[in-house]
């Protein structure tokens, strides 16, 4: 039998943030072959993505430890991601509108926001 006596929303948010960090890590790594082929700026973007992934991972740990500042920063990050993703999706630039893009760039940030939205009392 599995039983719980406190909210597990931070743990659920931790898993989603970990997943997001992994996806950004892959995006960062994907820039490296292009940088090696001569696209020098892609190296910078790749490194920036890897740093973002690392930051997200640290914030995920902060959320797991119920740190109030981590929760605040995660909410800021997810709102920025969501606004950016919606802009890209709404502009007529031929961005991908497939289910995976919607899950990764829209549903995932919304889920994290929903999970942490009313949890301030649970955080230190």
């Amino acid at each position, binding site marked *: *039998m*599995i*039983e*719980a*006596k*406190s*909210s*597990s*929303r*931070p*743990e*659920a948010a*931790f*898993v*989603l943030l*970990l*997943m997001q960090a*992994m*996806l*950004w890590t*892959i*995006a*960062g790594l*994907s*820039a490296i*072959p*292009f940088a090696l*082929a*001569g*696209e*020098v*700026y*892609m190296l*910078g*973007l*790749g490194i*920036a*993505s890897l740093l*973002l992934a690392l930051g997200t991972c640290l914030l995920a740990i902060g959320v797991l430890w119920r740190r109030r500042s981590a929760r605040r920063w995660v909410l800021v990050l997810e709102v920025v991601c969501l606004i950016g993703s919606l802009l*890209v999706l709404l502009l*007529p*630039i*031929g*961005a*991908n509108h*497939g*289910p*995976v*893009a919607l*899950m*990764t*760039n829209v549903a995932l940030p919304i889920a994290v926001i929903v999970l942490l939205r009313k949890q301030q009392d649970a955080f230190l």
Partner: protein
Amino acid sequence: MFDIAPDHAIGLYAGLLALPLALIAIRLRPARRRVPGTVLGASVLLAMAGAIHWGLISSHINEPFTALLFLMNGTGYIVLSFAFTWRWWRPASAALLGATLLGYLVYIALGFDSPDQVALATKLLELIALGLVLVPVRGELGRPRRAVRWTSLAIALPVLTLITTSTVWIVSLARPDAQHSHAGALLQATNDVATPDQVAAAAQLYAETKAAILPYQDWHQAWAAGYRPGGGANLGSTHWMNQANVDAGYVMDPRRPQGLVYANTKHGPVLLGAMFQMKHIGQFGPDPGGPLTAWHQHENICVTPIGFEFSLMTPFATCPLGSIDISASPMLHVWIVDNPKGGPFAVDIDDEVVKKIDRS
């Protein structure tokens, strides 16, 4: 990889339909109060993944082995989505999710299926479900085996995500479908073999274009005509675009191509060919040479305004920070230098050709 296979669409509908049903089913079960929310979340995702697998049975009925696998997998997921109070729920769910993820990768690596959006969405659901199954929760009662679960989570989630992404990507790039060429370029649909008329029309287009752009072998003339390089000169070749021609929307006019392509050599820019481009995404241009002059459209490329460089969107739809996912409207290249691998209208110029020009 970025399309929905017609025979997989039903799986997507089944998965979406399962979401409200799974939420209602959980609401109706008093046992939900005895488990952490992460377990309930995983249960919902398992139900969705199970419904997707069940949905795919009907469109794979002619492939009995595949249909049987979908049936077994879907049933396993649905049963586990209900059995969240079972003592062995976590190990059983983690084992089934891991086995399904790895099994799918073997399946596509062996060429039994091609990855598409439904498959990737399912894999994303399964990876998140695996994380929710394994993550220990504060205040959990009983024997939570926290150390084992943390270790499993720390290893399984990153490793499986990385393996899934790289396998899907390699398979998609190594075995593009008939409508896709290199790097996600979507080819215009044409007849299979060029007719004599189409061969003659392609030759005429080539001759007219070559004659019209020969003056631009002197890049100063191209500059004077309004062509400007996009991207760094450290790449093998660079597209020089004429914004006035782009805005005017000339359609395959040999005298006014939207772009020119130059090799970046130690002697300076060397003209490789011209590029015609349509004004709108999805609007392919006239195709006088049939399969010889098929247009192509670059989709799901990550473009950054910094240095105007690009990379490819990952299978899970992410781009490096500072770049955005776009599609470029259809284009047709006319290479005036010998391009033995793809011919005068190929999507790409052979790298070896560019290197040879640079060495000469």
